[in-house]
């Protein structure tokens, strides 16, 4: 009833339907098609072989087989020289270097240790630079810089102006000296995981709560008697004390990450390539004072001590260390400004022991 009343207000459109054209065939044609799908009749006896008919030459040149190649004596090939890239393996298999301490079975193995350190295709390459981390050779048109950045070319269709930027990449480096003898060596071996995963150990049973000794109870910190210190400092101040300018490291110390960042910054400029063998056996401790912007005060750089070499060797080692501090500190070391008191004075020990075996 409702439909009768309101149906006229909602005219229904016919639903869209797909129309497909078909071809009509006759019954004879359908019969023929059906016969083709039936399996062929196989006679129980094989048909006798026919005599091969004489092959008539075909006049069509396009279908003729290619003419037989003219056989000529090959040029004498000199015996191939051994590929200079392929080097003999070491006479004795190298002793595998085992870590001094195997990871504890109760610890979760470090996932990073299971990742191949070097890709199989990243065999050592003879490059001028040896650095802690190997760097693949940059593209030919790439400018060498410390920072890796892609090339940005002006886009003609762009509405806003774009800054043109050259592609830059770090200089190619290998992580050890590559000689003609060891070039390409151990590429496959280094692709193997350094450490194999060890099975988990049974969980340890819970230990009984240790009894806390009475002496371990926190006690009130003793108030230091500063009366003597105050008196001494007062006397020193009145006497025009000399230590007024002394450093006063205060506040939170640098984190390990911040120290590592500084270490890496200096390492990148510590070039020992031109040092003598004697200087490479000399460890020098160098003191330096930094300004608040992280730049070293070049006048403050001094050698505090040296071990392992003569005075001449120590001088060369010190000069290399000083160059590293000045060069990489030219734009200021990246250090937290709020901790300036902690890093105003730094003692850097330059130990080339690990560089000798590169």
């Amino acid at each position, binding site marked *: 009833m409702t439909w009768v009343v309101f149906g006229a207000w909602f005219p229904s459109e016919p639903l869209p339907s797909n129309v497909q054209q078909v071809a009509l065939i006759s019954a004879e044609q359908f019969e023929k098609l059906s016969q083709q799908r039936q399996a062929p009749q196989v006679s129980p006896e094989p048909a006798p072989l026919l005599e091969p008919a004489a092959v008539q030459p075909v006049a069509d040149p396009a279908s003729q087989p290619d003419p037989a190649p003219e056989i000529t004596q090959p040029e004498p090939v000199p*015996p191939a*020289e051994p590929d200079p890239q392929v080097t*003999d393996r070491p006479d*004795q298999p190298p002793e595998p270097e085992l870590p001094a301490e195997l990871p504890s079975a109760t610890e979760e193995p470090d996932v990073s240790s299971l990742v191949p350190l070097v890709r199989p295709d990243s065999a050592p390459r003879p490059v*001028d630079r*040896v*650095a802690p981390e190997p760097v693949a050779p940059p593209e030919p048109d790439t400018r060498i810089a410390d920072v890796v950045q892609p090339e940005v070319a002006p886009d003609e269709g762009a509405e806003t102006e774009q800054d043109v930027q050259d592609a830059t990449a770090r200089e190619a*480096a290998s992580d050890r*000296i590559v*000689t*003609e*003898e*060891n070039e390409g060596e151990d590429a496959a071996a280094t692709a193997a995981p350094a450490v194999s995963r060890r099975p988990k150990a049974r969980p340890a049973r819970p230990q009984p709560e240790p009894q806390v000794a009475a002496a371990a109870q926190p006690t009130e910190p003793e108030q230091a008697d*500063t009366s003597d*210190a*105050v008196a*001494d*400092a*007062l006397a*020193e*101040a*009145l006497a025009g004390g000399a230590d*007024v300018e*002394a*450093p*006063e*490291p205060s506040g939170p*110390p*640098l984190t390990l990450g911040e*120290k590592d960042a*500084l270490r890496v910054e*200096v390492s990148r400029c*510590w*070039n*020992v*390539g*031109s040092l003598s*063998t*004697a200087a490479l056996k000399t460890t020098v401790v160098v003191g330096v004072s930094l300004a608040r912007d992280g730049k070293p005060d070049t006048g403050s750089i001094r050698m505090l001590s040296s071990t392992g070499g003569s005075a*001449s*060797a120590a*001088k*060369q080692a010190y*000069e290399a260390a*000083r*160059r*590293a501090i*000045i*060069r990489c500190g*030219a734009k200021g070391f990246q250090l937290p400004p709020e901790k300036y008191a*902690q890093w*105003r*004075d*730094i*003692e*850097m*020990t*330059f130990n080339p022991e*690990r*560089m000798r075996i590169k």
Partner: protein
Amino acid sequence: MRKILAALLIGASALAGAGTAAAQTGPLRIEIDQGVIEPLPYAVPDFVPETPSAAEHAAQIARVVAADLSGTGLFREVPASAHISKVTGFDDPVKFADWKAVNAQALITGAVSVTGNRLTVQFRGYDVFAEKELESALQFSGTTGGWRRMAHKVADAIYSEITGESGYFDSRVVYVSESGPKNDRRKRLAIMDYDGANVQYLTNSASLVLAPRFSPTGDRVLYTSYESGFPQIHVLDVGQVQRKILSSGDGTMSFAPRFAPDGRTIVYSQTQGGNTDLFSMDISTGAKRRLTSAPSIETAPSFSPDGSHVVFESDRSGSQQLYVMPASGGEARRISFGQGRYGTPVWSPRGDMIAFTKQNKGRFHIGVMRTDGSEERLLTASFLDEGPTWAPNGRVIMFTRESQGSAGRALLYSVDVTGRNLKPVKTPDGGSDPAWSPLQK
């Protein structure tokens, strides 16, 4: 008065606190144990000509200095096209900022003057980032014909100042020049600067010559000649090109001679009755002394720099290995134990290493090891490498590399003792059996 006293007390207590904190922490301490090994960038603009006729030499000398330093593989020249500053006066102040901008860590400036046949070279080196002059400023004078030697001396001084070890550029190499096809190879003694310049021939190619060796002062050369039909040792005065035979007796073959560090004695191999042993000989008297007496072949002796020991090769153990014995003879100690055959050992001028030729699995190598045989390192690998000789500072090794096949040639190559910087040495013809002189005086 009370306020003043209170302020003083507050200030004093602050000082006391600071002193306590300083004693507890001290300066930040970090250890750097990883660095980089890369050529040190330097700049050597053309030297300043101080007389009109010195312009050509001023440019040439700067180029030879650059070739010397860059040729070591330890230095890399910043090309002149990148220079911001132009050095127009030897005494002009150096604009360090300009050289820092092109990352030149060392700068070499110089001036050249020519008066008649007299050439004077003065130079200075600078540590650019430290903004200070190196201590190597010197002045050399000589004839205009000796400008290359003066350039080498400048490079030696700079090299020594930066690396801390003596240079090797003002040195010479005597070698066997080889020309002609392999089946008709003509060999003659030649001498040249270490970089292949100024080649002079000391003998003609009428007879076969082998294994020349410099005297400790570089003024004489020992070599083996087949002039008489069998090998005999000759000594040749390099300056006057005069030679004489160090006769070792009829019916014997003597070869592989080498000077003792005192320059008065030689040690060599002598074959008699089918057996080869080591002997020493006083050059002035001709007195001989037997050092080994074994049925095996002992040859290729080389003195330690202090003259106390001799390293040589011998097949007494069944294969060719290296042995060390006292210079006066006596019990020999085997120092090579790796696979393959070892030969032609040469003691480093520093005394700490021995270079050798190694043959293993069909390949030849130049290698180095400690004098006790430890820390063996192979520096090269090819179809045929042999006959190492040390640069005067013990940093570089020169050797013979021969290529395979009927068209193969023998060429001189050099390599750093680390195995880096392997490169050929330019010679007019082929070359073999190089022997490096000491630094020239």
